[in-house]
Each structure stands twice: as C-alpha cells, then as structure tokens.
C-alpha cells in the first residue's frame, strides 16, 4: 500500500524475470499455452465476430457464418444516416463531455478541501464519498424519476447531465483525494509563508501538481458516461435524445432480422470506436488510477 506519488506503476511488466522455471515437463508447458491461448481466444472471439460482421456484405451475409468474409463500408453509411447513429453519437458527446468536465472540476476542488484542510467533519465527509462509490446507480433511479417528473426535468439535457455528474462525484473525488493526500506538504507550507491564499495554493500548486491524476479522473469519467445505459434509459426516453447506448438497446438484435445483423454490428463498432484511442493511449493513466485507488 505505498502512496500515489512514491509508487510509479510499471506498465511494462518484465515477464522474462522468472525464466528460471521454464524447463518443466512438456505436458505442463503445453498445458500453460493451451490455458492462456484458450482464455485469450474466448475473450476475443465475440469481438472478432462483431468486427468481421460489421464489414460483411449484407447481400451475401449468413448468420451461420462463424467469421463472415467480404468487405464493404456500405453498412456504416446506412447505419450512420438511416439508423440515426450520427445523432446518437452527437447525443453521447452532449451528455458525456459536460458531465465529465463538471464532475472533474468539482471533485478536484473537493479533494483539495479534504486533503489540505483540517476541519470538524472531514473524516466523516471522506467516509461519505468513499461509501457512496458502492451505491448502485439503478437504486436511485425510481426516486429520481419521480422528483424529476415533478420538476419537469425528465427528458431534458439538464436533468441527464446533472444526474451523470452526481453519479461521477464519489469515485472522482475519491480518486483525486487519494492523489492529493500524498502531495508533499512542504511546498504548501512554503507558499503559505510567502503569503499565498488558499485559492493561489489551489491553482498554482494543487492543480499544477495533480495534472496526471486530473487527466485520469477526466478520462475515466468520459468512459463511464459514454458507456452508461441507465441515465439515458431513464431520463432521456425520447428517440431524438437517444445516446449510442440507448439507441443500441432500442434497436436490439431481436428487432432486426438476420440480414440486418451487419448494420447492427456496424452500429456496435461506431459506439465503441471513439473510446479505442482514448483507452489505448490512456491505458497507462487508467491503470495507474485504478491501482492507486485500489491500494
């Protein structure tokens, strides 16, 4: 359980370290490969099937093909315009970017308050934020729906963004708190001696020193809201405000005949694609954030 600042998470494992045992019985060596390759293939197969189907020609596509052949980009054109994935993608952006930005900003401020000030109730607040991480979002939806109906906030961007922001707060605050708690206090002390107020300390010290953690928090927030089904399902029920997730849920394979499976898979790919560069390039940051929050 070392601390955020002290421990740099190695993201390139040195597998070769323990080669001392490599000479084992051939059966054991084969068994290892069989296990690892089997697990890896099971993990990839459904996604590979999705990928090849998304590019398959609907005219010759048969659902019985394990991995369909043929290549066309026509599916994406139809999915993009006719199935409304263009609008859904825009809606996903409208929901996820503001919610992630607001929740990150608010969480950074809260983490600063919790880590740099000693005040009555601080420990209780930390506990409250940490405990709230475990609240399953689904349990608050019925009551929230009733309240929002009375306020006229259902099916509004305001209500949905507000809810996504609120759902993100506990985890984001907790992540930022575990980072800021370990920042060297001497620098803050020095700044105080030089007469810097808490706003100065926040802007030029805490935020400046926490940039990587802020990036991680923001990245995780975007992924969370982008992938979230619940908020748009309950709070943005109209078709023109559907996000990629509710759009996929509404289209569903049950309503689409076999000949349209390639279109559906093209839609799945569109819903996943924007996150791929984010996760590939941000995997270090994502992993660091998760490992640090996990101790």
């Amino acid at each position: 359980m070392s601390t955020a600042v002290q421990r740099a998470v190695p993201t390139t494992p040195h597998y070769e370290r323990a080669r001392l045992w490599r000479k084992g019985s051939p059966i054991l060596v084969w068994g290892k490969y069989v296990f690892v390759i089997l697990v890896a293939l099971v993990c990839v197969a459904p996604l590979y099937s999705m990928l090849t189907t998304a590019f398959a020609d609907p005219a010759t596509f048969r659902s019985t093909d394990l991995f369909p052949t043929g290549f066309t980009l026509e599916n994406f054109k139809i999915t993009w315009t006719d199935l409304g994935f263009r609008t859904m993608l825009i809606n996903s952006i409208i929901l996820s970017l503001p919610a992630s930005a607001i929740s990150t900003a608010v969480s950074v401020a809260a983490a600063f308050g919790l880590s740099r000030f000693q005040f009555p109730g601080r420990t209780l607040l930390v506990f409250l934020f940490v405990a709230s991480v475990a609240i399953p979002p689904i349990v608050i939806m019925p009551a929230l729906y009733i309240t929002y109906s009375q306020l006229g906030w259902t099916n509004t961007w305001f209500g949905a963004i507000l809810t996504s922001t609120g759902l993100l707060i506990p985890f984001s605050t907790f992540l930022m708190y575990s980072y800021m708690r370990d920042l060297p206090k001497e620098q803050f002390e020095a700044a105080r001696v030089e007469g810097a107020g808490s706003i100065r300390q926040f802007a030029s010290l805490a935020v400046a020193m926490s940039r990587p953690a802020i990036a991680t928090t923001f990245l995780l927030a975007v992924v969370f809201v982008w992938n979230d089904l619940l908020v748009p399902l309950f709070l943005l029920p109209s078709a023109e405000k559907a996000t990629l997730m509710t759009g996929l849920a509404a289209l569903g394979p049950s309503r689409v005949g076999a000949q349209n499976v390639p279109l559906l898979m093209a839609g799945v790919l569109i819903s996943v694609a924007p996150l791929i560069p984010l996760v590939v390039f941000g995997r270090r940051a994502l992993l660091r954030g998760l490992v640090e929050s996990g101790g």
Partner: protein
Amino acid sequence: MGAYAGRNQGLELRKDKPQWSGWLWVAPALALLAFVQLVPIAQTLYYSFFSRTSYSAGEYVGLGNYRLTMGSADFKTAIINNLIFSLSVPLVVLVSLVFVAILYQGLHLARLWEAMVFLPYLPAIASASVALVYFLGENGPVNSAIRAVTGNDTAGIHWLTQVGTASWTIMLVLSWKRVGLTVLLLLARMVTLDPAQFEAAALEGASWPRTFRRIALPQLTSIIQFAAIIGFVEVFAYAFSYVFMLTKGGPQQSTYTLEFLMYQLEFSRQNVGQASAVAMLILAIMAALGAARAVVARREGELF
C-alpha cells in the same frame, strides 16, 4: 477503496485552529452528491413504507412492501440469480491468478495474450451485449460452429433462451468482461514484487506453482481483495444492464435479479412502494459488503 485508508502525511494537522474554509471547497461536490444520490435514497426509504404507485401517494403499510417482496417467487429467483452472478467474482480471480502466474513465469507473446484478454473491458455493456446476443444466438456463429463440428443439425446450446442456462450464460458474460482488468491489476502488483525472493526459491528447487502459492500469493492478498470487492460492487451495479440487454429478464422471468425486479415493479407494474423496498434491500447488501471490507481493512490496520 483501501487506499483512502492510510497515512495522511500531506495533511496539515493543526489541532488548535479548525480550518472551516475546507467545507467551502467540498460544498459543490457534496451538494451534487446529496441531490443526485443521498436525497433520492432517503426518498426511496420513505416510499418503501407506503403503498405508493406512479399515480397515487398511497397509504402507510409499515413493512408490508418488504414482506410482500420477500415472499414472492420473483424475489427468490432474483436472489438466486444475484448469487449465481456473484460466482463470477471467484471465477475471475481464479482464472486471472493462473493467467498471471503463467504469464509472469515467461511465455512467448505474453504482451499479446495480455492485450487480448483486456479487450472485452473496452466496449460498453450495451455494445458488447448486442454483439453477444448475435454471437450466442440460436443460429449464431457459436451454435453454427457446434453444428459443423458435431455434424448434427439440431445440436447447439440455448445460451440465452433456456431457463436455467441463461443465468449461467450471463454469469460467464460478466466474467468475460471483467477478467482482463483483474489480470492487469494483478500483473501491476506482481511486477512490484522483489524478483530476488522468487529466484531464491528457484535455487532451493521449489517448483513455480509452489513458489507462486507460497511467496507471491500472500503478497497479492490486498489487491485480490480489492479486485473482489469492486467485482461484487460491479455485479450489483451492472447486473441490471446485462439482464436488460441480454434477456430482458426472460426466458420465463428466470434471469430476474434484484435490480431487474426493482425496474419491473417500478416501470411495468407502477408499484413504487414495492420497488423502493427492493432498492433498500439492494442497498443493505451493498452496505454489508462495505462493512465486510471495512472489517478486513481494520484488521490490516489500514482504515483511516
């Protein structure tokens, strides 16, 4: 969870003068948390004592909603399914441990296998589910492959369409989605361990499985606990999305979970009171899990 415990080295501990301005920095986050999560939970607790529907406030029924819920057949199914889904947590930990033990020892193309296992973590539950409903469909690729291999045109598994099978399929889907992250977490901890201790064991002639069990495993305990806790939290937090996307609770309501039961009660049967009672039961389970985590953390002396 876990690291919040720990030392507050950076914290300015001036006991003489409380720094009340700290509250100001926390206030916006607290307000958002309260409005979106804490107040609705308080409302849910209140509603759970009333025979409230979507159209009327209803009257006070005491624990009636809880009694009604816990006596129903759907509730039993839901509890059993939540338990089945929870089995994905030990399954994922076990598979990940074996995977990491093998990978760490050295294997050709180790990075490739690691990346492949991580892939299912990327797509959203909704996206992955749509792909899986097709992939595991009656006439989907998997069953077609089974038919091709067995030469029997009626062979195949009713993955998501048969009572009894569907719940286990969802459990496997949950595991499929989570194994990569657990592997990454375990590997990240594994590479911080001192390799000299493994080399010493090797020189003394201990086999790698034995070395892993005796030397590595005890040092992985805290990260395994963390992985297990977030696993359970995710099983409860996301069970609804999986069921909603994969089976809609069917076939014959056999894949109901507590979360899906709550959704059904609220939005299909308009029974707000009973839905609220189910919501409170889910929260009680989460609180029990959290308490278990706190007890473990305290035993390790790491809480606050």
